[in-house]
């Protein structure tokens, strides 16, 4: 970097041409106008959404509450909820992009309406968002909310670090959002392969947005992984051995371990690409000794464990949901734990199957192909365990259960196509076609997304104190299920017919009918999203009829149901003592649940800290400055970040005491509510008579 570049104008690369409608105003050709209108419309949604949010908060005077109750809160429950909010907002954006892509391909015979560049941005942002800013925040949010309660802890081990992780993820998400309004996003796909993403071929800001959004999110996830793993190892309630932990906590542990080990390769890959682009290094360039295969190896060394980071917590949710709504202990608990661990370990041995066709010898491909197929074994064990859990149980078809059963059917299909792809000789035939797109959506949508949505429905009453509307939930679930099948099953056929992935237009008329079917599926998925929004609206409106303050609406089995809904800040007035699996079910059977302790003690909790939102703001501004080459902003933010850490080091007064008196009062209020609540049978749990206390069935009786 020469001195001249440092003293560029204060706005760096920013200019009027960074606005989405500029090209259309300057050169109003038909294609420019269509693409400009779509891009400007999308940008307007972001800007208007932001203005409306700010206006509403100002109107209801909620800035103070937002700051002191949410943004600065170190409470794992609030941080979890904020993660899920990010995930849902980003889900909405990425789904609209998906719909637009299906529309383009449905009309793509001989052209369509989107420019290739615009289409490339759509699939790049769709993938980046769905992985890093939808699935990751969603699972991190669920684990944050649920895991500490499942192990009987008051919070995670490092509450303020947790808030920093959230800040980093939020900054990354904001960066992707602002790329809609200012400049353009990468066109290099969600894995951004160089040399295409190098400065020679993509001189614009797109790959830079991608690099820094991923760097922020990746750093946040590394810290989250450390935090969760330490929490699970160190903060379990007395008596809870590792093999007493609920399965969701087990999957959270495996996911955390994967985050700790798999995020650094991503950090290195994006940092080296940044060095190439900013300082003229030659890691992945074509010339002067660069080698793009290094990027492929590094990226997928992260990328493959990443897909298990995504799927394992979903497996955890399914385990909890299926066991709770089958009214049975999980079948084959030990085999489940071992299968989860086996998947976590095997996930590091298969990365090469993402590029079978990129020049290794046949023997290397064979070794990685076999390793990939091996993953089917522990996954198969899990599927059988879930089925045996349902076998002879009294299965209740609530919304989370519908998602779980759909998952079992659809995920097995996705797994089968995975086994096909794991065979290098088959992969050579269908690689880079939409067959692959069908495969990974077939595992990601019914696997990850259905799991996250099942978890959202399952734990929502715990988090907010009222149940979600069951009817709209079922409508949404069925729209998701059929929408998914219509949108992606045709892609298997299209892939075998030879349609390459990421195709903006094609000349083969025989593709059209299946593309239309997939487009109809996209409509159903949008309907599913709409139903989710309506469900939330209806549920909030009728919240008073569906309150479950007593805290146990589904006759839950693990400790997160053993407190009020929503729980107090410190989760448990008295830390429970555990001596087996399904601790809360055991307590309810022994009659030790809802007991009033002899005495209460003061509880020490973390104080609020502004560090999280400060890191978010600095991280965002730093990344924005880097993207647009606004060097003064970069330098300023760098020193601000260092200063923030140093100041935090000097902080001493970081804890507060919740007095025993307060704890007693709150606990009493809850116990009284439990005593007053109807004991509701399973048949009535989805009706407003459910106040959060489950009727206990005598041992041996048919529930």
């Amino acid at each position, binding site marked *: 970097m020469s001195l001249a570049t440092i003293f560029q104008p204060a706005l760096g690369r920013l200019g009027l041409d960074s606005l989405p409608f500029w090209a259309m105003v300057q050169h109003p050709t038909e294609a420019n106008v269509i693409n400009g209108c779509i891009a400007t419309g999308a940008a307007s949604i972001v800007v208007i959404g932001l203005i409306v949010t700010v206006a509403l908060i100002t109107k209801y005077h909620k800035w103070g509450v937002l700051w002191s109750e949410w943004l600065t809160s170190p409470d794992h429950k609030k941080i979890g909820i904020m993660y899920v909010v990010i995930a849902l907002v980003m889900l909405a954006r990425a789904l609209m992009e998906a719909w637009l892509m299906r529309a383009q391909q449905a009309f793509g015979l001989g052209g369509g309406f989107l420019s290739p560049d615009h289409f490339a941005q759509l699939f790049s942002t769709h993938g980046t968002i769905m992985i890093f800013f939808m699935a990751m925040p969603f699972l991190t949010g669920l684990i944050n909310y649920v895991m500490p309660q499942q192990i009987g802890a008051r919070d995670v081990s490092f509450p303020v670090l947790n808030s920093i992780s959230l800040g980093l993820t939020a900054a990354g998400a904001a960066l992707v959002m602002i790329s809609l309004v200012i400049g353009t996003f990468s066109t290099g796909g969600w894995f951004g392969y160089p040399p295409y993403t190098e400065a020679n071929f993509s001189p614009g800001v797109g790959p830079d947005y991608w690099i820094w959004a991923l760097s922020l999110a990746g750093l946040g996830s590394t810290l989250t992984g450390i935090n969760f793993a330490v929490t699970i190892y160190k903060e379990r309630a007395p008596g809870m051995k590792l093999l007493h932990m609920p399965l969701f906590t087990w999957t959270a542990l495996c996911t955390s371990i994967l985050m700790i080990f798999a995020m650094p390769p991503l950090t290195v890959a994006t940092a080296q690409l940044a060095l190439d682009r900013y300082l003229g290094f030659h890691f992945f360039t074509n010339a002067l000794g660069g080698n793009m295969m290094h990027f492929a190896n590094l990226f997928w060394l992260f990328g493959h464990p990443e897909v298990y980071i995504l799927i394992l917590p979903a497996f955890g949710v399914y385990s909890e949901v299926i066991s709770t709504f089958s009214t049975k202990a999980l079948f084959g608990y030990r085999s489940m734990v071992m299968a989860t661990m086996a998947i976590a370990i095997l996930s590091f041995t298969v990365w090469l199957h993402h590029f079978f066709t990129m020049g290794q010898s046949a023997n290397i491909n064979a070794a990685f192909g076999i390793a990939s197929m091996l993953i089917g074994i522990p996954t198969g064990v899990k599927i059988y365990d879930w089925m045996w859990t349902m076998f002879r149980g009294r299965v209740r078809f609530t919304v989370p259960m519908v998602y779980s059963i759909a998952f079992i059917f659809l995920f097995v299909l996705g797994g089968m196509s995975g086994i096909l792809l794991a065979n290098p000789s088959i992969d050579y035939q269908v690689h880079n076609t939409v067959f692959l797109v069908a495969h990974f959506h077939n595992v990601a949508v019914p696997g990850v997304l259905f799991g996250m949505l099942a978890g959202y429905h399952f734990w929502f009453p715990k988090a907010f104190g009222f149940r979600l509307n069951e009817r709209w939930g079922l409508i949404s679930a069925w729209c998701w299920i059929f929408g998914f099948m219509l949108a992606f099953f045709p892609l298997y056929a299209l892939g075998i017919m030879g349609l390459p992935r990421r195709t903006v237009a094609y000349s083969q008329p025989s593709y059209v009918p299946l593309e239309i079917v997939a487009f109809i599926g996209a409509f159903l998925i949008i309907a599913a999203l709409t139903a989710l929004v309506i469900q939330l609206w209806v549920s909030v409106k009728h919240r008073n009829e569906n309150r479950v303050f007593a805290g146990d609406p589904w006759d839950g089995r693990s400790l997160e149901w053993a407190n009020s809904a929503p729980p107090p800040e410190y989760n448990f007035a008295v830390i429970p003592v555990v001596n087996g699996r399904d601790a809360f079910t055991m307590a309810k059977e022994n009659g030790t649940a809802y007991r009033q302790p002899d005495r209460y003690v003061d509880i020490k909790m973390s104080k609020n800290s502004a560090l999280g939102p400060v890191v978010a703001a600095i991280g965002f501004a730093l990344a924005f400055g880097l993207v647009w080459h606004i060097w003064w902003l970069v330098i300023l933010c760098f020193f601000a970040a260092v200063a923030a850490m140093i100041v935090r080091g*000097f902080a001493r007064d970081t804890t507060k005491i919740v007095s025993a008196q307060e704890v007693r009062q709150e606990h009493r209020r809850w116990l009284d509510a439990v005593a007053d609540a109807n004991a509701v049978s399973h048949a009535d749990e989805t009706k407003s008579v459910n106040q959060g206390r489950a009727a206990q069935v005598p041992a041996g009786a048919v529930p």
Partner: protein
Amino acid sequence: MRREVIRHPGLNLGPAHGEANEAAQTMLFGFWVFLMSDAILFGMVFASYVTSVHATAGGPGPHDLYDIKSVFIETLLLLTSSFTFGLASLTLKYKHSQSRLIAWLAVTLLLGIGFLGFEVHDLLSMIAKGGAPSRSGFLSAFFDLVPLHGLHVTAGCIWLICLVGQMARYGLDTKVKLGILRLALFWHFLDIVWIAIFSVVYLAGLT
């Protein structure tokens, strides 16, 4: 009580261990986990270097650029700084005076800064000999690995100064003690990474 002592050989948090020890345990365990993650980071950068070592693209290679004498001095400085940090830890453990602790930390800091000075000099003279990172894949990988370690040492030096600052303000409270324990881990970790760099980059490069 005896069991507590055994669980915490390096720590001297106060007369009654108990709760402070529990907190220390979590904090230090967390830092170990972070170091594991950091070790993977270095591992990846090492892998990058090892696979790029022949990608000199006709430019200068290890024999043209590395100055083993200077690197050997760096190595001695860093190893000695690890030793002096060990003495600081012992001073902390056996409750010697705070001024003695600060003295050992100061020696460590000076050695660290000396190491950085030699390293910066090395890197600049490499660039002067035509070995800039933009010259070849090999040099890119080199300038990713060695300065990454240097940046870590810089961060360690800043952290050390901050800890001394905290000590000046609050005395030797639990938080400062925990900070010193973690910085010690970090410092020794960087020492081990440097030994790997010395062997893999410099010794192997010059054979």
